[in-house]
């Protein structure tokens, strides 16, 4: 089978007895961004290191187009990697950091200067050229690392938890910026993260990893609306794993989206009577924990506060009840 872009086939990596990566296959099309999403320790960073050439797989292959890269050293792959801790070269200035990859490709300083300033413009750091990287803020360092990784125009850019160390607000903003930069450049990318919001924001497709395996791969929309397994539903933050038959669905486990639980108006066919157990204020909504008559608990979102012990009746949207495979 021949294809453009990255093709990872049956890759496994073992550390002693643990299978860090277990028979993983996936592809990244040119211009596409794929997020590797999973809890910490699921093997996503190891998989990234295999693609980068920093880790040798025991089995499996890594191809770019028709070129077998499985045993090529990292410096020969023409891939870029941006580390979680940025790994900036403390002994070099911002511009020298960005120019490093160009220098390694034999460009002279004069030639690379233009590209460096383009890159700094791109990440909104024009004029930072001569600063010491040790004097940068977290967000600035992150953007320098991005510019450095992008400067040599790698065929594939890999980002390992690039926003991991930043605070929430900055993260949200930079994730959006990142998406637009990648789109602007038509850059193929793999984005590793444990944060689904970030993955959904940045990626065209998301590959969810669990215990060394990719358990699901698809667009953010597909995955969110059809998590398929209880693990994935929980991991994505769906709080309500229920028995489907109790809410008008097929027998077996299902997830009931919080958006499918709305305040009953009085005429809905499917309703459930509950008592409020507790609630947390979440800014734009209240997260309310309620108990049903049979003693099981559900989580619902509400715009209003409800006293503990008070009664709430919800209408259930049957399209929000998604069956799960065992």
């Amino acid at each position: 089978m021949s294809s453009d872009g990255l093709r990872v086939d049956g890759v496994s990596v073992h550390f002693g007895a643990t299978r860090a990566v277990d028979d993983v296959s996936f592809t990244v099309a040119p211009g596409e961004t794929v997020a590797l999403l999973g809890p910490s320790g699921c093997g996503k960073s190891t998989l990234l290191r295999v693609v980068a050439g920093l880790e040798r797989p025991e089995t499996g292959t890594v191809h770019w187009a028709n070129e077998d890269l499985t045993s090529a050293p990292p410096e020969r792959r023409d891939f870029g990697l941006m580390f979680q801790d940025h790994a900036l070269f403390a002994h070099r200035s911002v511009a020298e950091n960005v120019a490093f990859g160009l220098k390694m490709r034999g460009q002279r300083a004069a030639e690379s200067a233009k590209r460096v300033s383009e890159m700094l413009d791109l990440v909104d750091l024009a004029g930072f050229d001569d600063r010491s990287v040790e004097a940068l803020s977290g967000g600035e360092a992150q953007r320098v690392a991005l510019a450095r990784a992008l400067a040599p125009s790698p065929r594939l850019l890999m980002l390992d938890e690039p926003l991991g160390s930043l605070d929430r607000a900055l993260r949200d903003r930079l994730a959006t910026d990142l998406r637009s930069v990648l789109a602007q450049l038509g850059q193929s990318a793999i984005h590793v993260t444990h944060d689904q919001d970030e993955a959904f924001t940045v990626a065209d497709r998301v590959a969810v990893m669990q215990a060394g395996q990719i358990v699901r791969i698809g667009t953010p929309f597909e995955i969110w609306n059809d998590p398929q397994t209880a693990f994935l539903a929980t991991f994505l933050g769906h709080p309500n794993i229920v028995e489907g038959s109790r809410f008008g669905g097929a027998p077996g486990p299902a997830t009931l989206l919080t958006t499918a639980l709305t305040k009953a108006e009085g005429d809905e066919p499917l309703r459930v009577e509950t008592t409020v157990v507790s609630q947390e204020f979440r800014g734009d909504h209240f997260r309310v924990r309620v108990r049903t008559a049979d003693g099981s608990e559900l989580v619902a979102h509400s715009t209003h506060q409800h006293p503990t012990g008070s009664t709430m009746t919800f209408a259930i949207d049957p399209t929000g009840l998604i069956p799960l495979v065992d």
Partner: protein
Amino acid sequence: MALVLAVCFFGFFFGYPVITLVIRGLRSIADDRPSQVLFGSAFLRIAWFSLWQAVVSTVATLIVGLPAAFALARFDFAGRALFRAALVVPFVLPTVVVAGAFESVFTRFGLDSGAIVLKDTVWAVLLAHVFFNYAVVVRVVGTYWESVDRRPAQAARVLGASARTAFVRITLPQLRPALVSAAAIVFLFSFTSFGVILLLGGPGMATIETEIWRYAVNRIEFDVAAAVALLQLLAVAALITLTSYAESKRERARRTGTQAKTRLTAPRGRQWLIIFGAVGSATALCGIPIFTLIERSLLTGSGYGFANYEALGTQVSLLPTSAAAALTNSVSYALMAAAIALVVGGCAAWAASQGSAGARLVDVGLTLPLGTSAVTLGLGVLIAFDRSPIDFRSAWWIVPVLHALIGIPFVLRGVLPTLRGISPRIREAAATLGADPRAIRREIDFPLATKALLVGAAFAFAVSLGEFGATSFVPRRPSTTTAPTAIFRLLGQPGDQLRGQAMALSVILMLVTAASALVIERFAGRDRASGGGFL
């Protein structure tokens, strides 16, 4: 490749002489003469004295150094940085210069005869040892103290402990790794002290170290000297084991301890007393000998002037060459020794940082000269390279090679932590940006280690400038006469002119060494990873 270079150089110039020495010592120890000496009551007394004076030197240095360590660790006062920087100078000063300085103090203040006599007494030796090692205590303990968590002591105060109780029960135990580490270093230096004992101790004083020299050089009894050196090696090896144990504890404490640097406070009230006391006594201890030395060097038959300095250019028959030429030798050899130490130590550090099979071995092996006394090393070279085709006793280059061996651990111990401290991510980042292993070494490892390399080389340079113990075994020729051996020879002679020359030469040597110490301070700064692993 780097590993091979380091191991070959080291194996040949250090391993081979030391093994030769050990074998000769082991062989001869059963013979009549060496065993008579080693197990004679006279030698037992000498061994006991060596130990005793080292213990007293250590305790005295700790007592004198602790207040200054405290002042530096806790308070921000005018001149703090200067004080801290100036402390390195006594540590790197050549032993013969210090001996000359103390002798000039004794003569100047009439302590050579009269009611209080310090000249040729154990007190002179102890004073000189405190002078040398003061910086070790202040910097090792002071730096550690800065990062010690103050909250336990504060908690103790809240729980009702007095300031003194809190200090004794909480702070001192917290400082223990640093105290043990500093004490071990001071003990080692005092135990293997050579030039100071010979010059300040008078003819009657002997330690194991000076006995090795006496048997080898004065008595030409190499078998006895080798047996004594073997004993010294064993004693020092035992000590090194203890030191490295303490060091590893200190490292661990560094890693696990609170790294949050507590803020320095402005001193007030009685705290000023401690600062004045510490800075004042340090200035007196180190300043008086240095200034007296300078004053004596300017004193001529007809008042003050530069006659002693001018005389350095003329050869006196006591020396194989002029004092000025000896100084030129010293500086050239120090440059060479620093360069060799830089290459070999740098290669070794790089190899050891790669975590290859022999890494730990390299790390330990190349640190050995630090524990091998200079005299043992000198004797080893003398008896190992004594037959053609490897008769190097009279080759001029054996001097810088010997000095380099002593300087290598300083480079290694400075550079290795830096290289080990480079995050693997940095190298990986470079690799994914297209840097092959060679480019990584050139672009990442080398530039990041430059500062530590410079500091290590400056240490090696300073050590070479002042090296006396090992050099005193190299037969004197015009090309092997260094400034310290010339000073030693000049100081041993009566006559104001020769002494004046010795003082003038000492002052110049001191200035050159101090300059390299300032380079060390400038680059090492507060970077705790570097500084020869000591300071």
